[in-house]
């Protein structure tokens, strides 16, 4: 028995759905297909964390004009805005670009690593709730589009150099999208309960 979380229709899921289950009334996706494996999600999250570090350490774009070179990372962008008395905007960029996606990846790691190994992590419910709250606020893919727009805007006034950070951000959004499309709260809860029962 399932209740759709968008229209609250009560319905029974078919026993062996090959492609996942959608709501009969409003078409909302209710269950993922049978290919779901926590180990794959864990691999995506681990790779995502590594790339996330690269993306924030190396400069995203560099600019060269009249012998002056500047380069920036996402953190540098927030820092520069804060220097100009634009703290609200700086905070917004810092949170949506760096802190919240990073925290979400760490939370997912904390959930998936023990579950893959067959242990039940402590504070599972609280971390699950945190992931649910954090997820809509991660905007790494929007940042990447922002980089492309600024590259074009700057290209006519100076020489621009895409950095390692930019390529890392490309990889990061692919990994994040992969892990988000596989994330299913209901299945993780079932796994958690199974792990607790066998201990």
């Amino acid at each position, binding site marked *: 028995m399932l209740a759709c979380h968008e229209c609250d229709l009560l319905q029974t899921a078919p026993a062996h759905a090959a492609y996942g289950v959608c709501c009969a009334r409003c078409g909302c996706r209710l269950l993922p297909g049978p290919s779901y494996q926590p180990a794959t999600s864990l691999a995506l999250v681990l790779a995502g964390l590594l790339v996330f570090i690269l993306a924030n350490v190396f400069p995203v774009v560099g600019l060269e004009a009249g012998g002056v070179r500047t380069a920036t990372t996402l953190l540098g962008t927030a820092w520069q805005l804060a220097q100009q008395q634009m703290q609200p905007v700086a905070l917004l960029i810092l949170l*949506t670009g760096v802190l919240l996606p990073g925290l979400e990846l760490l939370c997912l790691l904390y959930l998936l690593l023990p579950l893959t190994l067959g242990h039940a992590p402590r504070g599972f419910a609280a971390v699950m709730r945190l992931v649910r709250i954090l997820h809509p606020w991660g905007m790494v893919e929007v940042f990447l589009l*922002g980089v492309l727009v600024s590259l074009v805007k700057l290209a006519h006034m100076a020489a621009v150099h895409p950095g390692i950070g930019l390529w890392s951000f490309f990889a990061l959004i692919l990994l994040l999208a992969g892990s988000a499309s596989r994330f299913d709260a209901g299945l993780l809860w079932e796994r958690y309960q199974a792990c607790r029962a066998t201990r």
Partner: protein
Amino acid sequence: MPRYPLKTAARHGLWSCHGCNLLCRLPAAAQQSAWHCPRCGAALHRRKPHSLQYAWAFLIAAIICYIPANLLPIMLTDMLSGTQRDTIMSGVVYLWQGGSWPLALVVFIASVLVPLLKILSMLLLLLTVHWRSRWAPRQRTRLYRLLEVVGPWSMLDIYVVGLLVALVQLQSLATIKAGPGAIAFGAVVVLTMLSAMYFDPRLIWDVFEDDDE
């Protein structure tokens, strides 16, 4: 004759937990306030609590911020020739005249069209729920789903301004500063996202059952 003769979980005395989606059965004499999900411990509600009040509040705040967001400059460019003030619209025009019209289109959609359509769609959803409208519930649910997907994309201009500010610090040639419009624009994005998050799409469907009783 009801057009949607199907029953919701709430009608069967089952509430799904907002934290973990577990369906919970409510005993007949349950104290509403004292109910918690047996699996994750979150408080149980039939629908998101005070959904419409929160959604309206955030939406009205977003509409108020929308005016300075579009009128005030979001970017100030100091050059030898003087200071150039760019609003969101003038940034789009600048890209268009520079010959990169696909990009101008992307920026126009992300920073002008999406916030405006988001505000109008939330108004439509909230008003139809208020008037207990039975009009096109499936399409309205789909509209809501679309709102949640496109929500973050209007942050595009904030990131662009941030990057330009950080990169263009060429002391003698040009420096770029963020303008007050950027704060208002960021607020619009956050407020419309909050409004959509607090809205409960199940309210669209509740009318059908209440009327059929």
